[in-house]
């Protein structure tokens, strides 16, 4: 599977990562090599095999819906790069 620079640019946009032209060039070559290696999976016989997304036989782990203490606003905001009153502050969203 070839990973073109256009596809990589598209994936970088989906990932919200800004790449320099040099990074784009280098990563595209490296990811091509890695995908070339991964292509060996096409040799595996997976006819009739169910996928394993999780190894433990657990599903829908539930607990009682009882109120309990949660993080205080102060603690929640303690790491914020920018905050005001009880809010995280971010650059303008809507023009």
């Amino acid at each position, binding site marked *: 599977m070839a990973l073109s620079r256009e596809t990589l640019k598209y*994936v970088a946009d989906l*990932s919200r990562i800004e790449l320099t032209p040099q990074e784009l060039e280098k990563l595209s070559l490296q990811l091509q090599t890695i995908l070339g*290696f991964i292509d060996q999976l096409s040799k595996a016989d997976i006819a009739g095999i169910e996928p*394993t997304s*999780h190894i433990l036989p657990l599903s829908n782990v539930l607990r009682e819906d009882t109120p309990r203490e949660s993080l205080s606003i102060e603690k929640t905001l303690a790491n914020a790069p920018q905050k005001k009153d009880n809010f*995280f502050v971010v650059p303008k969203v809507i023009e």
Partner: protein
Amino acid sequence: MELYSLTAHELLEKLGKKEISVEGLCSSVRNRIEDTDSKVKAYVRLAGSPAVVNPKAINNGSLSGIPVSIKDNICTEGYNTECCSRILAGFKPPYDATVIRKLKDAGAIILESKTNMDEFAFGSSTENSCFGPTHNPWNLDCVPGGSSGGSAACVAADEAIIAIGSDTGGSIRQPAAFCGVVGLKPTYGRVSRYGLIAFASSLDQIGTFTKDIEDSCLLMQVISGHDPMDATSADLKIPDYTRSLGQDIRGLKIGIPKEYFIEGMNREVKTIVQEAIAKLKDLGAVIKEVSLPHTQYAVAVYYILGTAEASSNLARFDGVQYGFRAKASKLIEMYFKTRGQGFGQEAKRRILLGTFALSHGYYDAYYLKALKVRTLIKNDFDAVFQDCDCIITPTAPTPAFRIGEKSEEPLQMYLSDIYTISANLAGIPAISLPCGFVKNGLPVGLQILTKPFAEETLFQLGHAYERSTPWHKMKPKL
């Protein structure tokens, strides 16, 4: 004998008899760090003397007074936890991970400086850290392995008594092998991951670095168990691990997978591991060749599933709530710049690969196929464990490599995890213990794998081997 060079169980005995004090022990470890960490660089954010988080913790707990070093991806309330990534610069978690709470409850002393790691645990050499690499205590020009390279190196260099790390594809066992210490990845679900900053949620597991098997038992006894805060933690009774110590191994059936002793494996490593197997046979274990026919696919499956899960888990690092934020005038621009500047090269590679594998048009060809091959790999182990108690392999195909040797070749780096990845895909427990040294003085690790939730078999076999060999007593010259 310096206190820092002892094991936790030896120190607990001395503390119990009041031969030594906790203060004396802490200052011994602190002095050792001051003397050697400028060479090893196992710790990050080490400003002067390493402070301890709860020096007044002394209670009647099973680790009372024992200092423990913690990997930089496990949350310690109020103390920096940055995954050795620029994007988490300055992050002080508002809560303790469950393992940290359990360690504190047991009276352990948590070191404030954390141990170095590949950024977000992405790597096998600890070179992908925003703080620079850790050096292997046995040869400072070599890597300590990774991603928990700092935790492995600090135990090997006697800069720690015991340490905690995490293992998603070998990140405890491979550095333990490279540094000549005991590294355990427990069964998926055995130890709560609450407070472990997630890399790949279906594979991640917290585990231990120790100087011997008995300390692994001690530490596992404290950190294991069900936790309502981690929905994937298993609600099973925890056995008394120390009961597996000193047990006979006669009749224990050990499978040797033929697919693991192949081309590309270092010849000295092969000989040393074969000698270890012969030793276990002498001790009465029954050795038989077995087959894990889908082994060849493990690395490829891992680099699809691991990166897919990582791309999703790392979406939360966007500069809004914590960590680094790049200057920008619009929100979308802030996301792009924060992530572009905040993540290192390997993190970007993995996020991009994972996003690609999950993207429209490629999902079936990559992600879904990898999930199916994962089933085949798990079935291989289930079949072998029908007839064997455990499996033995080398932990890594080579001893530690040189710093810089593989850092520009990601695929070569990925292949250094070839023997450890399958245990994460199958969710089974595995341990690496020292089993000898190659001619140039670097240690070699023996990997033992067993059935889910049967960690005591690893301790039983590991302890029997350890008692009849000198390797775990060897110390690097620093």
